């Protein structure tokens, strides 16, 4: 059975970016660079719809 792993790979990528953004958010917070905090927080929030979109698109690929 040949399966497509594209969805899993793409979602792994999204989760990796999630980790990076979370880490950067917390870092920037302690350095009191609040603009940067908001930026990475926003990125992290945006990644969720992206993940959901990938999931929906790849869900039915056999």
């Amino acid at each position, binding site marked *: *059975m040949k*399966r497509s*792993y594209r*969805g*899993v790979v793409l*979602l*792994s990528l*999204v*989760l990796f970016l*999630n*980790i990076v*953004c*979370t880490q950067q*958010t*917390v870092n*920037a*917070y*302690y*350095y*009191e*660079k*609040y*603009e940067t*905090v*908001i930026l*990475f*927080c*926003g990125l*992290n*929030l945006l*990644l*969720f719809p*992206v*993940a*959901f979109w*990938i*999931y929906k698109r*790849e*869900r039915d690929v*056999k």
Partner: protein
Amino acid sequence: MGQGHNVNGDSKANNKNGKIPFDEDNYTHNIHKDNERSLDRRSFMKLMAGAAGVFAVSTLPWGAIAAKELAGFGNKKYTAAKITDISEIKVGEAIEFAYPGKHDSALLIRLGENEFKAYQNACTHLKCPVFWSKEQGEMVCPCHHGVFDPKTGAPTAGPPRRPLPEIVLEREQGAIIATGVKRYEA
């Protein structure tokens, strides 16, 4: 009796007896539904998408506090507070106090006759209280042996990467007054 019958009746099984129980090449004989394996991948992707959601929600508080901080025009206002009388602290010694809040523990170190430094002493690694080690002439964190330079607050060893926030000091009639907390530069 039944055993003997089986062996005689199925010569193929007889040949393989003692090796593998039956024909299989992919160890998936226990998967019956047609797309059970692709369903597996699907629910895994669902889990990953959910994890992305958790990440998103978990950064929300940080963003909210940052937004609040920005709305408060950046520079917080500190009220001056007396830490101690100079006569009460000898050169090379340190005392603990709390600034700016009741629960923000801090450390005042007298490095020289006229040299005072104060830092918030929650370790920048995982918030253990950093103490002043007179023998080493350094600020030391007991938890994972983080070491900070008392002149600048910068971490010199161990896991911490960020300097301790420095407290701005002033002298007034033989007393040391805390007037604010320095912001990190750029």
